[in-house]
């Protein structure tokens, strides 16, 4: 009898510590894992992934001299597979001589204006997205690794506040859907955890490549909140927070999403 109780007791202790270990395990899921098999295959197969066409276009633009400086990206950065490897995994970041973070597209536009002496490309412009997807593709399969930079803390905090703010006519926050109800179905659509693992993405609904900002705007419009203009700093703050939240997950660029 006592022996039996002891066995049950031990079993309970083991069960408890096993459960504790499970809590520590990383359960975060990329949006990729919430997609159907057909879409996963499309993303995995470079000949079927529509985003790869933009990666190719980006590769051509990388080598094209533009602007008053008549310089190409390659003139300064050489082989992107070497110089751009890991860069997207640690953006947004604060450029030298500035005190505000920029996202990858913002960084590319800085090189256009400062180094190529060319006009900045407007948000969601095809060439800008192609360059961004080409640069980000060089980090595919690398872990998201936000930089250690205390100057970013205030911006991350701002992003976290926006993420938790109930907003819009429907009075919902990002956190309500993407933290509290991730994995559940919103009118039949599985709510993903909102990890920015694959941007720019090829989204079937858009029939186009689009930035994280465009995706975030879609969510804001869905809850009938006022969407900031595409060049607003709020998107950079949100991206900083989302990248921190996704630290360690692998980049998939170019991802395919429904």
């Amino acid at each position, binding site marked *: 009898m006592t022996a039996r109780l002891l066995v049950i007791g031990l079993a309970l202790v083991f069960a408890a510590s096993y459960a504790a270990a499970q809590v520590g395990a990383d359960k975060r899921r990329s949006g990729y894992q919430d997609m159907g098999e057909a879409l996963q295959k499309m993303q995995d197969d470079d000949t079927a992934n529509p985003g790869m066409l933009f990666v190719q276009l980006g590769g051509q633009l990388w080598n094209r001299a533009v602007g008053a400086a008549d310089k190409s990206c390659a003139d300064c950065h050489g082989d992107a597979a070497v110089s751009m490897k890991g860069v997207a995994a640690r953006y947004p970041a604060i450029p030298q001589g500035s005190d505000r973070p920029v996202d990858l597209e913002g960084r590319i536009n800085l090189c256009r204006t400062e180094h190529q002496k060319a006009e900045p490309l407007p948000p969601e412009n095809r060439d800008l997205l192609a360059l961004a997807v080409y640069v980000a593709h060089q980090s595919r399969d690398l872990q998201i690794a936000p930089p250690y930079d205390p100057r970013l803390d205030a911006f991350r905090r701002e992003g976290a506040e926006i993420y938790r703010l109930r907003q*819009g006519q429907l009075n919902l926050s990002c956190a309500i859907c993407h933290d509290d109800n991730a994995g559940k179905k919103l009118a039949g*659509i599985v709510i993903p955890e909102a990890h920015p693992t694959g941007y720019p993405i090829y989204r079937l609904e858009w029939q186009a490549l689009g930035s994280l900002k465009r995706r975030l705007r879609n969510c804001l419009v869905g809850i009938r909140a006022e969407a900031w203009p595409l060049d607003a700093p709020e998107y950079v703050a949100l991206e900083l927070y989302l990248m921190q939240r996704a630290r360690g997950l692998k980049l998939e660029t170019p991802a395919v999403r429904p």
Partner: protein
Amino acid sequence: MRVLVLLALAFVAGPAVAQQPAPPVVPQIVDDSIPRSLTGRPGDAARGRAIVASRSVGLCLLCHSGPITEERFQGDLAPSLAGAGSRWSEGQLRLRIVDGSRLNADTIMPAYYRIEGLHRVARNFEGRTILTAAQVEDVVAYLVTLRD
């Protein structure tokens, strides 16, 4: 797949349906219910069913499921609406739609007839309730018919 894409579009695009500018009536809350019709007239259950089913007007099936079989894609963030009329009185259902936060302060269910206490509402929806008083009554009339 195709259907899902269309659904996502509907969720994202939202409607441009204009509601009236401000609630013209102040709902009279008694305990946990609003006993009297917001319009002074009973609603229409058939119209209410259409509002509940609509992804751009009622939005209910984003979160809820319900006995509306032609809508294949329903939500599971909230309990099924089936049997709501047995569980709650008409007045309780009215308060639940007008402002569910009176029943559960942390509820994620939007207040369908309230304009205060909201942040960063899109300009085309600012100062407008999600449903009009008449639409609230139609929805209530439909929910009352949902008996186990």
